[in-house]
């Protein structure tokens, strides 16, 4: 038998008050872990967006505000499709490709789905007026968006899965539909299946690989099919412009505004700005939560520890009478506090990570993974608080007069 066995056995005698006293500490760590986890992964997603889409520009109907680039078409406001033609004809330098989108709500066998109309590149090719725009031979919008090299062109572009990475697709039939990964599993559909949509039968051309964005939860069909079948008419929600980064930074925005004064032109940096600010605020707040809850938690641990010392007076006196030093008694209580702190920190980490895993996709459309660093921070802060809160109770225990063993009840 060792001191730690003694602590462990005693802890399980009456664990309830001790574990309850941990609640605030655990909550504090939970809040920290959940918020930090979400903000860190949100930050990473933003960085990723900036990297892969950094040069891209969105043309939106005025009065639309955006928080998520991938949700740029999901706001219900529309503008004429004619703008696409106008942009194409303007031949603005730096514009690599144009991707107009129209988003409508539909049902597949009573399951509500988000159907997005997109325009394949073949459509542009069909329009002679767009020839020479310089975009047709290039893989567009991929990687950093910097004017694509010849190496990027070719086969990959003809793969319908390129929609997931390059956000454009070469060919798309009138009655073809492309499914996001999550939606496909929800519908139980696979490539080649036929789905009833807006009163017509559509064939699943492909299921996109998972992207970690809201694109995983929607389906894509030909823009003109969507326009016709939904009765929306020749309108779009957004025009995504794949641009060369150098040009996007420079005059492209000004040129676009001049060309389409009745729209709102937004860069990725502007889209993510709000989220960056929110993240910063949340991150700071999470430390405030942690501090407040740790203070409250410390107080409740201290009071439960005091009660524990009081109710164990005779036991402590007996231990001292049979040779336990003050140091031993102190360690007995601080050891217990340390165990509680570690447990509270670990529990907070687990709960916080679960909360982040559940809320991350719902709130921000991001997938989070556990962050071991937060486990360290959570356990360390909870343990320090528990031990510090128990210093005075432990001191009181060590200072008990062993003579009290004789005061028989």
């Amino acid at each position: 038998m060792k001191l730690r066995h003694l602590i462990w056995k005693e802890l399980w005698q009456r664990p309830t008050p001790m574990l309850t006293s941990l609640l605030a500490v655990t909550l504090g760590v939970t809040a920290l872990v959940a918020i930090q986890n979400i903000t860190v992964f949100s930050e990473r997603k933003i960085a990723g967006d900036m990297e892969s889409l950094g040069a891209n520009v969105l043309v939106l109907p005025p009065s639309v505000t955006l928080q998520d680039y991938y949700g740029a078409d999901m706001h219900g406001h529309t503008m004429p499709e004619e703008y696409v033609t106008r942009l194409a004809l303007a031949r603005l330098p730096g514009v690599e490709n144009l991707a107009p989108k129209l988003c409508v709500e539909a049902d597949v066998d009573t399951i509500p789905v988000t159907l997005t109309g997109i325009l394949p590149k073949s459509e542009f090719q069909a329009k002679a007026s767009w020839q020479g725009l310089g975009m047709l031979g290039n893989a567009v919008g991929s990687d950093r968006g910097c004017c694509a090299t010849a190496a990027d062109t070719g086969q990959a572009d003809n793969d319908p899965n390129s929609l997931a990475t390059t956000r454009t697709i070469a060919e798309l039939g009138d009655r073809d539909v492309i499914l996001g990964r999550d939606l496909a599993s929800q519908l139980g559909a696979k490539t080649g299946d036929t789905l009833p949509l807006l009163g017509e039968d559509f064939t699943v051309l492909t299921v996109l690989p998972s992207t970690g964005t809201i694109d995983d939860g929607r389906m894509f069909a030909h823009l003109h099919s969507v326009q016709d079948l939904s009765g929306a008419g020749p309108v779009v929600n957004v025009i995504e412009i794949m641009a060369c980064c150098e040009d996007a930074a420079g005059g492209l925005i000004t040129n676009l505004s001049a060309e389409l004064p009745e729209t709102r032109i937004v860069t990725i940096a502007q889209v993510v700005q709000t989220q960056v600010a929110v993240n910063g605020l949340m991150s700071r707040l999470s430390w405030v939560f942690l501090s407040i809850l740790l203070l409250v938690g410390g107080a409740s641990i201290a009071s439960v520890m005091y009660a524990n010392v009081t109710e164990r007076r005779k036991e402590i006196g007996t231990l001292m009478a049979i040779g336990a030093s003050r140091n031993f008694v102190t360690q007995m209580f601080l050891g217990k506090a340390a165990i509680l702190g570690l447990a509270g920190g670990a529990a907070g980490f687990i709960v916080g990570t679960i909360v982040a895993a559940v809320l991350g996709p719902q709130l921000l459309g991001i997938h989070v993974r556990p962050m071991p660093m937060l486990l360290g921070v959570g356990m360390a802060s909870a343990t320090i608080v528990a031990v510090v809160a128990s210093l005075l109770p432990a001191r009181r225990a060590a200072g008990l007069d062993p003579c009290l063993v004789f005061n028989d009840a």
Partner: protein
Amino acid sequence: MYQLSSVTQTYERRGQIVTALDNADLTIPDNDFIAIVGPSGSGKTTLLSVLGGMLAPSTGDVMLDGQSLYDLSVEERTALRGQKIGFVFQSFNLISWLTARENVQIPLMLSGKTAKQQEERAMEMLDRVGLSDRTDHRPSEMSQGQQQRVALARTLANDPQIILADEPTGNLDSETRQQVMNYLNEFHQDGRTIVMVTHDADTAAFAHRTIRLVAGVTHEVSMARAA
């Protein structure tokens, strides 16, 4: 061997001074068996606490084997107590959430024995008090007499030279009282010094010597024969 010279212990409570031990002189040679009797509040427990190194007297000297007990630091006295002195309490003072064996292991753990040594010694001691079949029982699952025997096994674990007992039979019926006293008598015959506080004349009769305390003053009563 204990030598107490002019030991006075006073308590102050609410402005009143209580003299629990009044200028006590007492010599307890090795292997003595001594009963301390006296009315309630006469200072018996106080004397035992002083002998146990747990209560520094207001004035006077307490020598144990030529060493002035209260010139040692608290930690040194605690260590000394662990080695040399065993206690027996009226209400046994077993730790309720530990088994009989674990209770006996505690003093062994405190004196730094390995887990194996602790277990072997604890089993040996429980066997000695006739409880080898109760080693995994908790105190609440045992009779009063059995609990006191576990406490005796714990007292004996580190093989103390001195046993200080405060009303060891106070909570026991006459039969188990007899049993416990027989064990104490055995421990005395092993060569240990026993100082026992008791109210009970029959219990006191086991001792060689009886000291009567009245209002903190010691009186030698008689030199009885061991039963």
